[in-house]
């Protein structure tokens, strides 16, 4: 019975017109695949930005640091100023020491990021070459994350030594206050735990990313997921049929 032929009943909500049911055309893309692709796209974009910023830092880092560093005030104790200069020199020395390890790491990161970005976007559109690219990207990214975590921990250990030395020198240059807390003991502990905390946080993030990439490697090889990419008679993703 169509709505127009019905008698009027004020207590009954109006019915919507009956139309022949036309099932919507869908790609049938599972939610897990969408989530994996989106995460890979975002991580790829972030990795690419990180590589560009890292390359800028490697090329122009010391000069840039010098340009933006606040000028030492004349009121500052001489020991403090010397400690600051030495600290900066030591940081630059550590960066120079690991330069030939960080530059290939930046390149490695950029390659992994581009693969993740392209693979993620193309897999979202259920293109088979995109799935293969994403599989390669996940493999490359797992290797990168493992190597990068090792490099980061080695660099962080060197940095921790430099920061501890700097804190000690700064505290020596500052006149002691006998009534207050013993900063000579508290400050190195705080600094040590801050660096360790950031290192642990970095490891946890790396672990989560490795977990995601391994999930991607396993999930993208499942037969029902592969079948989605083999089906060529699917509507385009970003403009569904009206």
């Amino acid at each position, binding site marked *: 019975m169509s*709505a127009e032929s019905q008698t*009027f009943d004020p207590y009954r909500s109006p019915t919507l017109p009956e139309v022949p049911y036309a099932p919507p055309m869908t790609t049938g893309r599972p939610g897990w695949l*969408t989530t994996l692709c989106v995460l890979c796209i975002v991580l790829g*974009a972030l990795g690419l*930005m990180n590589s560009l910023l890292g390359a800028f830092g490697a090329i122009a880092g010391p000069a840039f640091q010098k340009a933006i560093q*606040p000028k030492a*005030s004349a009121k500052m104790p001489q020991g403090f100023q010397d400690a600051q200069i030495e600290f900066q020199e030591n940081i630059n020395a550590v960066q120079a020491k690991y330069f030939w390890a960080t530059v290939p790491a930046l390149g490695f990161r950029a390659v992994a990021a581009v693969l993740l970005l392209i693979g993620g976007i193309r897999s979202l559109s259920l293109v088979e070459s995109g799935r293969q690219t994403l599989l390669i990207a996940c493999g490359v990214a797992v290797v990168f994350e493992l190597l990068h975590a090792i490099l980061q921990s080695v660099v962080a250990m060197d940095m921790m030594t430099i920061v501890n030395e700097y804190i000690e020198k700064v505290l020596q240059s500052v006149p002691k206050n006998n009534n207050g807390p013993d900063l000579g003991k508290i400050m190195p502990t705080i600094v040590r735990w801050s660096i360790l905390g950031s290192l642990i946080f970095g490891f946890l993030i790396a672990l989560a990313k490795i977990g995601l990439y391994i999930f991607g490697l396993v999930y993208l090889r499942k037969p029902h997921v592969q079948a989605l990419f083999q089906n060529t008679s699917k509507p385009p993703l970003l403009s*569904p049929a009206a």
Partner: protein
Amino acid sequence: MTLPEDPYQSPKAQQSYEPPKWSSNFSDAAAHAAGADRGLIGHVPIIALLLIAQGVSEIVFGLFGLAFTALVYWGPEKELSGMRGIGLLFAGISVPCLSIGVLRIVAGIFNYHYRRRILGITALACGLCTLITGYCAPTAIGLAIYGLIVYVNEPVIMAFQLGDSGRPRSEIRTAYFTRR
């Protein structure tokens, strides 16, 4: 005396049924929605509001950065003149932050009405550039992941098509949320 009508008889429904006066294309929208899964359509307003909130926070950060730059250049305190390098850095970060903040707010307003999905995706993607501020980075990353998952959902794409074709938000929501 005869009454023209029997007062004890229930009134006869003689009026013909008139369909409710919704917008002319509501039937089409309903027809789409009737066969469609509602997917993540309910998340679109949440993302739109989060885009606006993130945009506001980025604008606040940008204004703070510009205020700091102004302070180190024109402030009365002579000690601050040594921080002009940082002031320039802040200005360099603040300008893109402000423009991305405005983009997010505009996209959020349109997306709230299920319009301009691509603008929303652009705002989410450009928003990742605020990573350099550190301040907005975690929320920007979270919002980008959540937003992209929702915006590539097929019922959401369909709802945005309805919105872009001129149907008001209330109709789209009614079409998707009153029928199962």
